[in-house]
């Protein structure tokens, strides 16, 4: 079989750029899982809302990009706190009810999305048109921008979790909630913070992919599916594991799509997940 090498390298590069955006979505899930021990199925819808907010505020409303992003961050913090207080808090400790409730929230957002936004696909013009050529690899600038922003956010999250007091509180709750509470950590506030942060990451990821894909209220399904595969491969609750697995899944999917087609690439990623579950059930870097 003859494979055109530059195409493969191209696939690899696109894979890394896509992977880092998956990382952004999956990190929010990891963060929420670490604190609340639930997998938030509504995450893909927050990503969709981020993209839709860009369309309605920036494209339709004519708001410049930076205020739009600020508005998106603010709205997702509010939504995150509202969801945590209104739904997650009263169900704490019942994982089945929590997961089902997050699915309920996801369905509410998505069906309201279809009703309000309509079935018409929407598109957002590129923030940064043009193509960068480097060693025979051609990459759209907007993808580089999105990946750059994602990398900065991931680094910021690392600093927040490992270098600040709020991060210390999060890690304390994750490790031993009872002791952390006794030492004066406000568990409710930490829970709100982590859900809000997770929502911000997802919404920002959505905002930066808006020019790449066409938008519809069902667009959250693919990133949420990839994120689930990523957090299983990386290990539930492990931040570094999520980052590595996200890049790996992005590359596998992109290179797999070049070699075998997009749907078969899903199959490949799925097989990797099964292999991880068989040989290393806790994930690459997770602890049981």
């Amino acid at each position, binding site marked *: 079989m003859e494979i055109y090498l530059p195409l493969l390298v191209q696939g690899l590069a696109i894979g890394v750029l896509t992977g880092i955006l998956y990382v952004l979505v999956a990190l929010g899930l990891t963060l929420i899982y670490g604190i609340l021990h639930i997998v938030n199925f509504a995450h893909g819808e927050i990503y969709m809302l981020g993209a839709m907010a860009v369309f309605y505020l920036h494209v339709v409303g004519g708001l410049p990009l930076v205020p739009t992003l600020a508005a998106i961050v603010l709205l997702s913090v509010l939504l995150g706190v509202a969801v945590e207080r209104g739904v997650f808090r009263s169900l704490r400790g019942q994982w089945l009810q929590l997961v089902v409730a997050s699915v309920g929230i996801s*369905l509410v957002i998505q069906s309201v999305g279809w009703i309000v936004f309509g079935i018409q696909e929407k598109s957002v013009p590129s923030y940064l048109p043009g193509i960068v050529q480097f060693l025979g690899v051609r990459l759209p600038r907007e993808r580089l921008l999105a990946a750059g922003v994602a990398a900065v956010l991931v680094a910021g999250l690392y600093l927040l979790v490992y270098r600040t007091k709020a991060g210390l509180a999060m890690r304390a709750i994750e490790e031993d909630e009872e002791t952390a509470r006794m030492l004066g950590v406000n568990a409710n506030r930490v829970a709100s913070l982590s859900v809000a942060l997770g929502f911000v990451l997802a919404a920002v990821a959505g905002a930066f992919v808006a020019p790449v894909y066409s938008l519809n209220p069902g667009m959250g399904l693919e990133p949420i599916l990839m994120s689930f595969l990523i*957090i299983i491969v990386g290990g539930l609750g492990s931040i570094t594991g999520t980052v590595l697995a996200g890049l790996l899944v992005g590359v596998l999917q992109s290179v797999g799509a070049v070699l075998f087609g997009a749907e078969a690439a899903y199959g490949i990623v*799925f097989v990797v997940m099964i292999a991880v579950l068989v040989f290393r059930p806790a994930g690459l870097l997770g602890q049981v």
Partner: protein
Amino acid sequence: MAFLRQDPRLGVKAVVLAAVLIALVALPPLAEPYVLHVAIVVLINVVYAEALYVIMRMGYLSFGHAGYIALGAYTSALLATKLDVSVWLGFLAGGAVAAVFAWLLGMITLKLRGIYFSLSVFAFAEVVNAIFRAFDVFGGPAGIANVPRPMFFGTRLNSHLGFYYVVLAAAVVSLAFLYRQASTRFGFTLLALRTRDTEALAESVGIAAARYKTLAFVASCFFCGLMGAIHGHYLRFVSPFVFTFFFSTDLVIFNMVGGLGSFWGPMAGSVLLTALGEQLFAAGYYKSLVYAVVLLVVILVLPGGLIDLPRARQAWTERRQRFSKAPVTTAER
């Protein structure tokens, strides 16, 4: 029927059950086609919901049962359209294929804690859907058209009425099995695996928990595959856009809204919501919205589901009496 005799309320239960069965058998010839259609959809959904209940009862959550239903529907549809196999055999083959795939995935994932299972079943269903969409052998995005109805003594069951009895028979047999299963040694063992602590306890007395859980999942998916095959032949086409994530979540919603406390919970949930959903069918996304809102309200306000309503009402009244300023004796006669 020794197991029935142990129930002190046998008389009432048996009379109600017999009355419902007689009504389900005798009334349809009088009903309009639309009513028959709703009845068929309700029966199919009840079996799906009760099949899912087998694993929800042991504390496992699946957002991928539509994948197994799709496997059943596609197997039977392909056998009938491409290989001209008898539809009746196709039904069983549909169940069998779903069961084999359930066994393969269950072996790997059911050893792990609940959430890994939920996520991998979800991923499995999405991959199954993507594969059915991608390859022309499976009909691609258009699906498979002209799926035939079964033959019955030389006539094809093309009328709603004829097919209704097929669905009814399959549903009654499946539900009887699923109901009976819950009160066997196997069913009680599943109940014991509900939490991590009780699972450890069960294993300590020599119960092979993983094997029981896998078997439960296989049974659950067998009935979904079987009913999925029947469903495909009812619709006369199968398409990847029928068996989506939303299909899976509907089944979870039926279970949660009805209540996980007893066998009758998922049945109540699926009958009520399917009947309601058929009324909202033309309203498109409003149906999904209504389901989701009902789900959230039930989870937050009535954790035991509709089946728990009498007990919850009693608890609410008691609480109101305790907190009300009026003397207890005059409250709520």
